[in-house]
C-alpha cells in the first residue's frame, strides 16, 4: 500500500476534526492570567506573614504616672510593671524607653516641646517587650499589669494583625475567583472549538454513530485532541509567565529582605510553588480540555439522536 492508513490513534477517522490553531494561544493567555493571580495571592500571603511575624513579636506597654510608688515606700509603678513583665513566661528583653527615645518617637506629633521636656502633660512610661508564642494575650496581661499600675495599657498589635489577615484573606479570595473564572473561560474556549469541530464533521459523526460507535468512542477522539491543544497552551502560558513571576517576586522581595545580595537572587526569590507553574498549568489545562470536550461532545450527541 502506497499511502499510510489511519493510525491506531485515529481508528474512527476524526483526527482532523478539530484543527483549531487558535485554541492553544487562548488557553496560554488564560494560563498567564491564572499565573499572575496565583503569584499575587502567594506574594500577598508571604508579605502579610512577614509583617505579621514582625508585628506579633513585639508588645508595647504604656504605664501612666510611672513615677508614683505602687504603695507607700513600694517600688515605682514602672519598675513594678517591668519586674512583672520580666517574670512572665513568653516575654523577654523588656526595655523601658528612655526620655530621649520617647522624645524621638513623639517629635513628629508634638514638635520640639517633646524634646526639651517642657510638655505640660505627664508622659506615660513606654515599655517594649518581645513576645513569643507562649506569651499571654494582651487582654489577659493588661488587667494583671493594671492591678499594680492602674491605667496600664498593653498593645500587642492584634487589631492591626486582624486587619492584615482580613486583607490577605480577601486578596486570596479574589485570586481564587480569578482562577475559577479563568478556568471557566478556558473551558468555554475549548467547548466552542469542539462544537465547531463537531458541526464541521456532523455527517461523518452521524455515519460513525450509525456503524455502532459508542458516545465514548467519539467523545474520546475529541477529548484527546482538545487535551493536547489545551495542554500545549497551558505549558506555553506557564513558561511565558515565569519571567514575569520572577520579576514580581524580585519586587516583593525588596519589602521582605534588606540585604541587596539577597534581593538579587532571582532563583530563591521565586517561591518553589511558582517554579512548578508550567507543569501545574499543563496538567490543569489538560484536565480542563479533556473534561470540557467530553461534556460538549456527549451533550451534542444526545441531541443528535
Amino acid at each position: 500500500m502506497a499511502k499510510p492508513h489511519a493510525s491506531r490513534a485515529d481508528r474512527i477517522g476524526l483526527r482532523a476534526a478539530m484543527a483549531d490553531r487558535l485554541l492553544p494561544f487562548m488557553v496560554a493567555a488564560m494560563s498567564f492570567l491564572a499565573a499572575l493571580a496565583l503569584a499575587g495571592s502567594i506574594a500577598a500571603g508571604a508579605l502579610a506573614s512577614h509583617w505579621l511575624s514582625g508585628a506579633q513579636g513585639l508588645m508595647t506597654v504604656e504605664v501612666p504616672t510611672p513615677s508614683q510608688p505602687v504603695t507607700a515606700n513600694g517600688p515605682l509603678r514602672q519598675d513594678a510593671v517591668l519586674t512583672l513583665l520580666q517574670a512572665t513566661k513568653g516575654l523577654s528583653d523588656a526595655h523601658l524607653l528612655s526620655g530621649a527615645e520617647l522624645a524621638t518617637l513623639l517629635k513628629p506629633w508634638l514638635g520640639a516641646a517633646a524634646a526639651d521636656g517642657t510638655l505640660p502633660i505627664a508622659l506615660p512610661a513606654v515599655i517594649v517587650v518581645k513576645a513569643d508564642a507562649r506569651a499571654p494575650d494582651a487582654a489577659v496581661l493588661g488587667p494583671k499589669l493594671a492591678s499594680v499600675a492602674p491605667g496600664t495599657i498593653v498593645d500587642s498589635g492584634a487589631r492591626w494583625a486582624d486587619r492584615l489577615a482580613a486583607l490577605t484573606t480577601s486578596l486570596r479570595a479574589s485570586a481564587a475567583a480569578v482562577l475559577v473564572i479563568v478556568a471557566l473561560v478556558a473551558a468555554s474556549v475549548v467547548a466552542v472549538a469542539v462544537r465547531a469541530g463537531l458541526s464541521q464533521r456532523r455527517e461523518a459523526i452521524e455515519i460513525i454513530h450509525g456503524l455502532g460507535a459508542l458516545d465514548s468512542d467519539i467523545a474520546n477522539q475529541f477529548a484527546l485532541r482538545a487535551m493536547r491543544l489545551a495542554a500545549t497552551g497551558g505549558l506555553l502560558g506557564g513558561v511565558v509567565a515565569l519571567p514575569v513571576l520572577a520579576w514580581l517576586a524580585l519586587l516583593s522581595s525588596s519589602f521582605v529582605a534588606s540585604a541587596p545580595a539577597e534581593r538579587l537572587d532571582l532563583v530563591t526569590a521565586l517561591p518553589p510553588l511558582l517554579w512548578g507553574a508550567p507543569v501545574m498549568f499543563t496538567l490543569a489545562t489538560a484536565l480542563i480540555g479533556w473534561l470540557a470536550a467530553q461534556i460538549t461532545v456527549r451533550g451534542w450527541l444526545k441531541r443528535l439522536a
Partner: protein
Amino acid sequence: MIRFTHVGLTYHRAGAAGGDAVALDDIDFDIPDGGFRWLTGPSGAGKTSLLKLMYLAARPSSGRIDLLDTDTLRLDRRGTALLRRRIGVVYQDFRLLRHLSAYDNVALPLRLARRKEVQVRADVTELLRWVGLAGRLDHRPEELSGGEQQRVAIARAVIARPSLLLADEPTGNLDDDQAERLMHLIRSLNRMGTTIIVATHNMGLVARHPAPVLELVDGRLVRHG
C-alpha cells in the same frame, strides 16, 4: 428473529406545509433467523423508512420491534450502539466518509470493534479484492465511480459478518455482472446464517433469485411471502 408488531412511523414535520407524514402504518411481520427477504414497492412506499427502523436510525411512532432477540424500545444508548454493530447496512446514498480512503471506510466497523490491525488489514484487503477494488484501496470516495462507491459501501456493511444485513437498493449503480456478483456474496453470507433484507426496484433480479417478498404500497404491507 425479527418481529414487527403493529408498527407505525409518522414523520413530524414541524411548521412544514402538509404537516405530519405517515410513512408506515400497522406493519406486522416475522422473519426467522437466517431468512432472506426482498423488500419491494413503488418509490415513496416506505422501504427506506422500514429499513431505518431496523437499523435503529428511527424509533417507531407506535408498535414494537424486536431485532436479534432484543426489544428495541428498551435499549439504552450503549445497547443501541452495540446492537447497531451487529447490523450491516448498505445505505441508498452509500454514506461513505469523504475524508477516508476506500480501505479505511471498509475498516471502520472492525476498528470500532477494536479488532487487531493485522487482522483488519487481511480482511479488508481480501474483501475489497473480492468486490473488484484491489486497485482502489487508497482512493477516497470522490475518486471512485458510483458503482465503485456502492461496492465500498457493500464491503463496509459485510466486513464484520453482521447477524443482520440490510441493503437499500444495493444494485442501483451496478451493471448486471456486478449485480450478480453481489447477489452471490449476499447468498453466501445468508448461507452462513446472516438474516438479509434487500430493498430493490429491480424486478429482474428478484425473478432470478426467488425468495419471499415484503411488498409495501403507501406505507402498508400488502404482501408477505
